[in-house]
């Protein structure tokens, strides 16, 4: 992307910090919901070829539980909260004491609970970014799917699709304890959002 020709390292650092702040607030929200400490790994920010984006979530055919929402406002984009099926199961048990029914099937209530968790986490992620940048960023009503990672993540790539064959991804993993992953946040701002974010944060474009 042209915008990243000048000073790319600094710009990537800024986006990493954006991810850090957003996901940090989301992790705090999750930790309050579960009444357990939730930690997070340092976000990775990178241009990922479409072909390999699903590898970040275990591979294109890996079945994941994904809550997707579109970000509207000054800096639009796409956001996913991704979990493996065991992670989603643990989250449901930890949160509401849902008894494990079938390992693979989810009831309407369970899906709706997971969707609401995604909503709360994305809301705190975006609120903190909106406070930081002064830009309006509001989540649309979230939607949930349990399916192949490849099929799901395509929805985050459409805005980049017309520009090239890779997308800028801000990827943060939530951890419980030292290393056990509890979920993953993907934030993929639309290509035109970066300039607005940089301007509002006082990052020189050139």
């Amino acid at each position, binding site marked *: 992307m042209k915008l990243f020709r000048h000073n790319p390292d600094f710009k990537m650092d800024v986006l990493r910090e954006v991810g850090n702040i957003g996901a940090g607030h989301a992790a705090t929200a999750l930790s309050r919901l579960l009444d357990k400490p939730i930690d997070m790994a340092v976000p990775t920010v990178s241009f990922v070829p479409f072909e390999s984006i699903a590898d970040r979530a275990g591979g*294109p*055919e890996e079945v994941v539980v994904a809550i997707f929402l579109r970000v509207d406002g000054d800096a639009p984009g796409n956001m996913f909260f991704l979990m493996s099926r065991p992670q989603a199961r643990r989250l449901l048990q930890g949160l509401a004491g849902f008894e494990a029914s079938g390992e693979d099937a989810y009831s309407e209530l369970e899906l709706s609970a997971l969707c609401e968790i995604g909503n709360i986490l994305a809301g705190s992620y975006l609120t903190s970014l909106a406070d930081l940048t002064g830009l309006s960023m509001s989540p649309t*009503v979230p939607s949930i*799917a349990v*399916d*192949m990672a490849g*099929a799901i993540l*395509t929805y985050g*790539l*459409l805005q980049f699709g017309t520009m090239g064959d890779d997308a800028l991804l801000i990827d943060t993993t939530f951890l419980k304890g030292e290393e056990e992953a509890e979920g993953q946040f993907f934030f993929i701002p639309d290509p035109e959002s970066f300039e607005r974010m940089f301007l509002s944060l006082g990052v020189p474009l050139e």
Partner: protein
Amino acid sequence: MMEGTVVKVGMADLNVAAGGAALKTTGLGSCVGLTLFDPKQLVAGMAHIMLPSSDIAREGQLNLAKYADTAIPELLKQVLRLGADRRRLVAKLAGGAQMFAFSSGASDSLRIGPRNVESAKLALESLDIPVVAEDTGGNYGRTIEFDSRSGVLSIRSVQYGVKEI
């Protein structure tokens, strides 16, 4: 290329195979997997199409395989080069799902699956290639594999297992 070989087709990618080799693409959501096949020459091609029309492209160097209106003519060119007879070619389609349901205010980009299917069919029609089978729409992901010997397209999904068309 020989029997037993599986040729991988990535996202926004296309490829051809012959002599019993298979073509495979994984994790189709809103994307459309399209195959062309000459049942006599046993020449096959597959495209993993991401977007309906290259009119919206803003990229410098156009990736032909990405858009329905450019991928299908390019795939046609490649299967013809491999010895397919244009008059015998038949097409199969899979994918074009709508993975996420939105109650209101769904932007057009979320309907991308059905639009990809429509656009692929239009492009095939304009090239006079008949669609002999399809498994499109729904709200689930698909992995597809095409056998260039039998002409069978097998479709695997998490909910419904394997289906052949």
